[in-house]
Structures are given as C-alpha cells and as structure tokens.
C-alpha cells in the first residue's frame, strides 16, 4: 500500500489541551521552540556544517525549506556534555572521536568519488557518498581503522531518534500518542478516538 499522508498541525493543536500532561507538553514544546540559529559549541563550525549537510542527506526535508527539523544541534550538544545512551560498539572509538573521524571519512569518500567536498556536491552525488558509506566498504584511509558499518548505523540511529522525537515529524506520521489523557479507550483494530487524526484523503 502507499504510505498515508496526514494533515499538518495536529500535534501542535493538541499540545495546549488537557489531553497532554505538563511534563509531556514541556518536552515537546521545547523542541518546537528550539532557535533556528544554533551556534555549535562542540564541533568546529566547518565540521558542524558538514554534519548538517550529511543530516540533510539522511533526512531530506524539501517540504520544510524555511525551517527543517534541526538534527545536528542535538548531536553537538550531546557530544559537548559527554552524554551517552548507555552503550557503545566496542568496535568504535568513544563518540566524540568517532564523529570526528567519521565526518572526516565522509569528506574522504566525497573527494575519492567526486574530487569535491561533500557540501559542494549535488543531492544525487551526496546520496552516492552516503550510499558508499552505508554499503560498508567506502574508499578512504579513515575506513581502514573506523568500522564504516557501525559508524553509519550509530549516526543514522541517532539522527533518526532526533528526527522522530520532533512534534513536526510526529505530525508527519500521524502519531498523537502524547495526547493520552485521560485514557485511550479505543485500542482495537480500526478504532480511534476523536482526537486521533485520520489520514488526509
């Protein structure tokens, strides 16, 4: 089946209502209110710009030309604070080092394939660079010591988590699970409450 489309604005309309708890509202509103002009605090400006370009390739957002869901700032913040998600592939170096090496390695792939920096490539070429990385055997000296598979998986998983934690991404997939007060009573197949939005026709 073709994937459904959902109307915009659904989560934002529910946030102020009594269906959403204070703690839940605070978490989601904070992501909506994040300033668009984030200044990197851990990554060097050019490295941060590269991460942004890679993130835009992994999550192309042509539907949000003015204000895409920001992905790179959360990574920069996490690396700055030294936070972890509780585990790391032993095959990879510590996260800060892995990102530093891995982003350099992506630049290496871009140079090897197209003789250009990643940010200067068109979308199709960027896709090929990321494709080479995702394929697990990309060109470049970096990837002789850094496990390409694991690095790509970790970076993709982190950016994916950041993307789908955002209220706009949740609107995109028709998810309104945050509006769970006082209860869900219609939980069976093809059942939904009035506050659960149907897909667009």
């Amino acid at each position, binding site marked *: 089946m073709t994937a*459904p489309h959902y109307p915009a604005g659904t989560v934002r309309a529910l946030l102020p209502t009594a269906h*959403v708890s204070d703690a839940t509202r605070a978490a989601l509103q904070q992501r909506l209110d994040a300033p668009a002009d984030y200044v990197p605090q851990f990554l060097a400006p050019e490295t941060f710009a590269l991460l942004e370009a890679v993130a835009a390739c992994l999550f192309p957002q042509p539907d949000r030309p003015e204000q895409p869901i920001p992905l790179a700032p959360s990574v920069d913040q996490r690396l700055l604070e030294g936070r972890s998600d509780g*585990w790391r592939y032993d095959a990879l170096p510590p996260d800060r080092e892995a990102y530093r090496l891995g982003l350099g390695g992506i630049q290496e792939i871009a140079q090897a394939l197209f003789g250009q920096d990643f940010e200067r490539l068109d979308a199709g070429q960027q896709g090929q660079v990321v494709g080479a990385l995702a394929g697990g055997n990309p060109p470049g000296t970096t990837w002789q010591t850094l496990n390409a598979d694991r690095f790509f998986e970790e970076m993709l998983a982190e950016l994916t988590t950041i993307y789908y934690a955002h209220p706009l991404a949740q609107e*995109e997939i028709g998810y309104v699970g945050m509006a769970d007060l006082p209860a869900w009573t219609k*939980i069976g197949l093809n059942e939904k409450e009035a506050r*659960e939005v149907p897909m667009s026709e």
Partner: protein
Amino acid sequence: MPDEEVLEEGVLNPVQPEIQDPLLRELMADAPATAPALEVPQEKAQPTTAPLEEVDCVVIGLGAGGAPLLARLAQAGLKVVALEAGPWHNPEKDFATDEQAQDFLFWNDERLSAGGDPLAMGKNNSGTGVGGSTLHYTAYTPRPLPDDLHIKRDFGKGEDWPLTYDDLAPYYEEVEQFLGVSGPTPYPWGPSRPKGYALAPLPLNSAAQLMVRGAEKIGIRTSPAPNAALSARYYQEGVGWREACTNRGFCQAGCSNGAKASMDVTFIPLAVKYGAEIRPNSFVTEIERNAQGLITAVVYTQNGQQYRQPCRNLFLCGGSVETPRLLLMNELALSSGQVGHNLMAHPGVQVWGTFADEVRPNKGIPGGLISQDTHRPKDADFAGGYLLQSIGVMPVTFAGQVARGRKMWGQPLRDYMRNFNHIAGINILGDCMPHTSNYLELSDELDARQLPKPRLHFTAQENEHRMNAHAERIMRDIWEAAGATDIWAFNRYAHVIGTARMGLSGDDAVVDRDGRAFDVPNLYISDNSTFPSALSVNPALTIMALSLRTADKFLEREMRRDA
C-alpha cells in the same frame, strides 16, 4: 512519595523499627558484636563523613531483585538500608509521554558491547532509579514452564537450575497476587495452579488482535498474556488503591499512573512501611571485608559525598552488569572463576508487517498476547524453545530499529515511517545457552566516575541461530496469514542474564540455590545474574520470586543460628 531532601534528613525513617518477630528479636539482641577489628587496610579515596551506625542488611539496587527482599527483611523487623544508584521519581508528575524525555530511566553510563552480536544496552537492557529497570519493563510476567529449569537434563546442553519449579511456584503465586497480575485463568500452558491470576486480562490491542487472526489460521494457540499492569483497581498494602491501566502504551518509557507494578509502587512502599530506609542517588564503589573475609561495610557516594555504611549482611542486587562489575572491582567472591562468565541474552527476533487496517501500535500494553505453543516445537533442530508475543511500539523506538535493522535512510525512510499507524509486530523470547565466548569483563577505559567500563562479549551460537530461523519462519507465516505486507525481521537480543550463576557447588558457581555466595557467607546475590540458564520467559517474575525466596532462606538461617 518522599523527595530526596526529606530522605537525606532521615525524616522518612526516624526511629528504630520495632522487631516484630519474637525469634528475630531475640536473635538481634544476642547477635555477637561484629568480628574484632582486624580490618584489612584498604586505600580510601577520601575521608568519609560521620560514621553511620551498623545495620543488619544493606541492599544494593532497588529493581526486581532488591525490592522484594528489602520488603521481606523489613517485615521481619530487621534494620535494612537500601542503596540505589539512581533517583527516586514521582512518576505522576515527572514522567512524560515522550520517549526522549524519559531517557533518564536507563543506565546511561557507557557499557562496551563486543562480540559477533554486540548487545544493545541503555533502553534495551538496563535501568536506574528507585524501582530499577521495572520502571520501564513491559511487565510481561509469564512463569517459566517446569522443564525450563532442566535444559541440561533434557537436551544435554546448557545448565540445570539447582531448584525446581515446585520450589518457586509458591513464590510465583505470592508475587502475582501481591502485584495484581492481570491474566487468563486458567492459563493454557504449564501445570494447573491452585490460584488464578489476581485480575482479568487486560484488553487486546490491535497488534494482539492481528496476531490472533494470523495464529488461528495456521493453528497456533494464543492467549491474552499475563501482565503486571492492573486491569482494574487493586489494593496495595503500603500504597492504598492503585488505579487501572489507561492503555497509554508507554510501559517501556515509564508508567505515570501506578497501574504497572514497578517496584516503586509495590514492594518498595511496603518495605518503607515496615521501616526500610531508602537512599537514592547512592552509588556503591567499595565493599569492605574483615580478616575472616566477611563483609563489614559498603562505601558509596551520594550527591558528591562519600559515606561508609557498616552492615552485618550484604544483598547485591545490581543486575547482570553492575553486580559482576562490583564483584570484579572489589575482587570479591571470585574463587569459582565464574563471575562475569555465562553471559546470556534472550533471542528476541521481531517480525514487523504493514497492514491495510489501522493499527495505531502505541496504544494499549505493548505485550498483549502470548503463545507458548513453541515452547518445545516438534520440528525443532535446537535445544529449548521460545514464546511468541504480540508487540505494540512507540514511534521513536520503532524508527530507531528501522534505521538499524533495515538500514533505510533518506526519502525511503520517511516514506516507510508514514506507515507507523499501520505497523504491528510479533517477537519471540527464547532460551539461550551459556558459551565460553560470552562474558563480561572490566575494560581499561574509565567512565566519568573513574571506574572501569564493563565490556560485554556476546556472540550468538548455533543453537540461537537455529531458534531464530525457526521463529522467524513461524512469525512470517502468522503475519502473512493475518494479511501483512512488507514483512521484515529485526534480529535482537534482550535481557542480560548470567554472570554470577547459582549452582550446587562453589567449584562452578558463585552462589548457592539460596543466593548466598559460596566464598562470602554474609553476601547474597539477588538478580538475573544468578540464573544458571536464561529460561524461555521474561525474567522479572522469576527475579522477584527468587528474591523473596532468598530473603526467606536468609531469615530461616538466622533463626537456626539463634536456636
């Protein structure tokens, strides 16, 4: 629930609790002073604050292993102190219906995952806070079937438990009744039971209904699952009335209304009522011993201050990573050579499909439906077996698995994720055999506390591969019969088990059947590290049952010593 400030001032437990049991009262009165001060000199990082008074028992860790025995020991009138590394939450106020905001429930100090099938930790496999990982467990509470405990007897592989199902059955019943487990009566698999589940089953959500539809067509029996979330209000000693589940579906990111029987709304309030003292944010680093090798005190850090808590007995309940880590760091109870070894993890392959029906998989308890028809499949080419369960899912968790499991990215990932409301899953939970290549060790890399990070080696072996293949085939059949398209499998392992196993002899086990360390008579271990085999069911119920049994055996021994 008291907040930390109140706890630190000791207001919660200002008086010496009265010892209720006459025998124990005598015992405590006659208890010999602790062994003469022949302490092995130990280096201490920094001077500790004012010395604390000796207590009967210190319990480290307040998850499914620590909380039940804490309540039992307090009820017996002992002076008990619990040290929990994480904070004490107020779920109603603090818990958001948002996966990312709930990350604080996981043990986020980094663990290193090595081997051919590195174990995902963090949200997959760990917990912290008063309640431990029960704060985010699915609350799936099936009992093992009797032959689960005798895998070696039946297959010549793995390890047998030094206990039988009958040893544990009364404790299963007690835990089920106390927590208010919702489930089917009679339960379709296993021996008949004197008592049914405390409450009727929870309602089936879409994923469960779809699994019924598919399983019926291919001749697999299913049943609503036993789950420790309340299908109706339930009276809880020490708490009062707990309200019924509101179908939030966020069990794995923390229950905000107390319907799910995490330890913080069940055994811990009971323990507090009987005088147990809870010290949250207390990270244990050292375990002190005297010349006889008996434990005399634990050293811990709370809010930047170091404390030394003298104790007569220690109950180590930190789970299969922190328990062996503490033993290894303190060179404690290592003579069997088994600490850190026999690390097991449940095969937990998930099979996902897309349905034309509207599923909205975030609603209702995630694990609504169970089948144990695959416990000992007739056509199996492997030892042991597995159970099947339907799975609901939250969007961020699901998206992360799509990224890792399908390696989708770019527009295809965004397109696939727009099917979220039409996705449903089934997974298995299968037995796992111990293997020499699967173990935990201390690495050379230090964490923020300047302690060695644990490294977990895990490589699935032939038996796990065969079981996964068998299970994936069956789950694909179920989903095809139910009408799913775009079916895919996500290979995963959940629950870290083993690493300090129980057994009959100190030659090849760390603790005996009562959880008592062979090397250290006043050390008990109560958590999933003591499991000799993984069992083909979710571990929490068995951890709690063993915890109560360990407390009872300890109390019996104390009384005997007195007599």
